């Protein structure tokens, strides 16, 4: 049989990448390593049917996806451009020491990608880093294609007995503009037609990825969608204590009072379409997005749907004054995922990856106590972790 070799012009090469390169390091569980400037954490995933693990079209949450257990890809980038918040909002993962308790990756093998930005341009560098990170996560799962799984979980919302309360998850996704938005099938949350009902399995299967770089502790990195504790818990409770009514994705950081109110009412309407008796409302990032959550809480309660809200606190540890950024009286059932302002004890790592100097100018290896706020996902407001705050 003949063989064909087709030749194409070099013009097809894209513009030079906005990254000069990337350093790759493998860190084993518990190694005395601090990782700085962390953008995202991603679980390696691949699909045996060759569909993308992080799809931009089609529907996730069908067929089978392979995951690599105990491995996480951490992407790091020190933004090159002069944009102020990005230069103050440090994001750290400690793999040992007191900070390890606040980020859940100390027990995992971390593949740390440190991107070296090329020319100026935060958005180009970030886009390239994000794309590459997802590709690496997919590539790392490649060996699973020729192996036998340790375990296969099946996610299907089956039937449940009448009389159990119907519970939905309302999951907020930030969109405050470039570098501050989450992606739904590769589209920024603000352009993804939110609020919208999705199959809960879509969320777990790479339909939502992260590109949101606010205060590290309040971020929802990609892995928190892939392993989403709320959706997994609701699947597990289905038919036992509740009926899992579904998932609504909604936007955080609506920009005007009218838009905020409209979006809150629309989210409540989606919950009604699902027939929910109650909803758990989750939060993404801080400040303005907390107002969206409170308005959504009120809109649901007005519609007769009971609510529990998950959010983090920003309280001066020496003060007993009010502590929530925003609040409505309807928010009478709130889970606190911790106080961002508390300090985590000092620790000297033996090695630093991601960048030696923290964004506040101190040396990452010898800096003093670090506030919880700077640990990636530590006070995750989807309730991914066990951190909480209580009155003492």
């Amino acid at each position, binding site marked *: 049989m003949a063989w064909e070799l087709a030749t194409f012009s070099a013009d097809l090469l894209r513009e030079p990448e906005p990254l000069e390169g990337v350093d790759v390091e493998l860190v084993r569980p518990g190694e005395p390593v601090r990782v700085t400037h962390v953008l995202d954490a991603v679980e390696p995933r691949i699909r045996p049917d060759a569909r993308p693990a992080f799809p931009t079209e089609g529907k996730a949450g069908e067929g089978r996806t392979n995951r690599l257990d105990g491995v996480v890809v951490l992407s790091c980038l020190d933004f090159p451009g002069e944009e102020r918040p990005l230069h103050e909002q440090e994001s750290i993962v400690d793999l040992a020491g007191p900070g390890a308790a606040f980020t859940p990756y100390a027990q995992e093998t971390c593949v740390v990608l440190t991107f070296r930005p090329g020319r100026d341009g935060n958005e180009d560098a970030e886009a390239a880093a994000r794309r590459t990170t997802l590709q690496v996560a997919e590539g790392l799962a490649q060996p699973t294609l020729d192996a036998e799984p340790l375990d296969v979980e099946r996610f299907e919302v089956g039937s449940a007995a009448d009389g159990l*309360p119907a519970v939905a998850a309302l999951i907020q996704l930030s969109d405050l503009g470039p570098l501050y938005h989450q992606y739904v099938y590769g589209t920024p949350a603000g352009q993804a037609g939110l609020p919208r009902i999705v199959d809960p399995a879509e969320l777990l299967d790479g339909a939502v990825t992260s590109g949101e770089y606010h205060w590290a502790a309040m971020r929802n990195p990609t892995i928190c969608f892939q392993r989403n504790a709320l959706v997994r818990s609701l699947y597990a409770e289905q038919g036992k204590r509740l009926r899992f009514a579904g998932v609504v994705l909604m936007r955080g950081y609506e920009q005007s009072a009218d838009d905020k109110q409209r979006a809150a009412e629309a989210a409540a309407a989606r919950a009604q379409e699902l027939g929910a008796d*109650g909803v758990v409302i989750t939060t993404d990032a801080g400040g303005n997005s907390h107002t969206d959550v409170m308005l959504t809480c009120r809109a649901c309660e007005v519609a007769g749907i009971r609510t*529990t809200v*998950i959010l983090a606190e920003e309280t001066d540890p020496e*003060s007993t004054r009010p502590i929530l950024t925003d609040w409505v*009286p309807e928010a009478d059932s709130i889970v606190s995922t911790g106080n961002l302002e508390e300090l985590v004890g000092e620790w000297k790592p033996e090695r630093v990856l991601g960048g030696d100097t923290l964004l506040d100018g101190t040396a990452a290896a010898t800096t003093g106590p670090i506030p919880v706020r700077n640990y990636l996902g530590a006070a995750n407001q989807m*309730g991914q972790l066990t951190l909480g705050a209580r009155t003492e």
Partner: protein
Amino acid sequence: VKAVHYVNQFFAGLGGEDKAGTPPTRLDGAVGPGRGLAAELGDVEIVSTLACGDDYFAEHEEEALEALLGYLEEDRPDVLVAGPAFGSGRYGYACGTLAAAAAERGIPSVAAMHPENPGVDAAGKAYVVPTAVNVAGMRDALPRLARVASTLAQGRELGSSEEEGYLPRGFRRNYFAEKTGAERAIDLLLAKLGGETRTEVGGGLDRVEPPAAVPDLSEALVALVTEAGCVPQGNPDRLPSVRAKGWLRYDLNGEETLASARYESVHGGFDVTLANEDPNRLVPLDTARELVHEGRIGRLHEAFYTTTGNGTPVVTATRFGREIAGELREAGVGAVLLSGT
């Protein structure tokens, strides 16, 4: 390891209501309930007992505190124990106030009283161990009070209020729960659907009463204040874009407008592109000047006040407000245009 014990005139054995005007005094060793307390304290020795009449403390708080803190200064105890005051309001208030003042000065302090005693609110950073409403609760209270006191005296950190048996002071502290936040949320929601509403954090916001209307704006001195992070170009005083620790005052130098060549916003909580094209939209100097020319505003205060309102704890922001308002009041300012972002 040394403790000092505070009691009122009655428990010090000085007399009843007729001796409530007794000024502060210092007695050697343990007295009255202090003897029972000493028995529970183990290695911690009560070196002195401070006593004060309830009326005297209520009527001469400043002098009483000064004298009592003076005694503490001399004795330098490892812990101050006050009460138990049970349901007695004046005694409880004295215990709470003294314990709070001692705690502020770095002396670990614990009082004991009924949870509804007004002294609980006075105790600040000091600990309060709950007791029954009357003296019949003494036997039950002393061991619990001694346990907290002895932990504090040994310089050990107390665990949660629940574990250690003191009343929550209102400080929010992190802890690792047994369940994830998601599982806790499902539990709370199902409980609420079942008619039992609980929360891990209370709401409530500060409400600021609006002041009376300005009687005549055309006579008023008006100031411009903002939290929009508006500063002279180049941010010469390094106002942070988030978590500001203070505020700044800039002379207007008779300027009619905030030119974009001279001012900018360093606020990190919103996209400042449009604001920087016209800083008057953050600090409306142009419009305010027009209103002065039209006679609708009397005069403009010739300085504007600025900070960054982004990630600032409420307690810090309240301080900024007090300080700025203090200066403005002194300058005779009658009204403020406060622009928020």
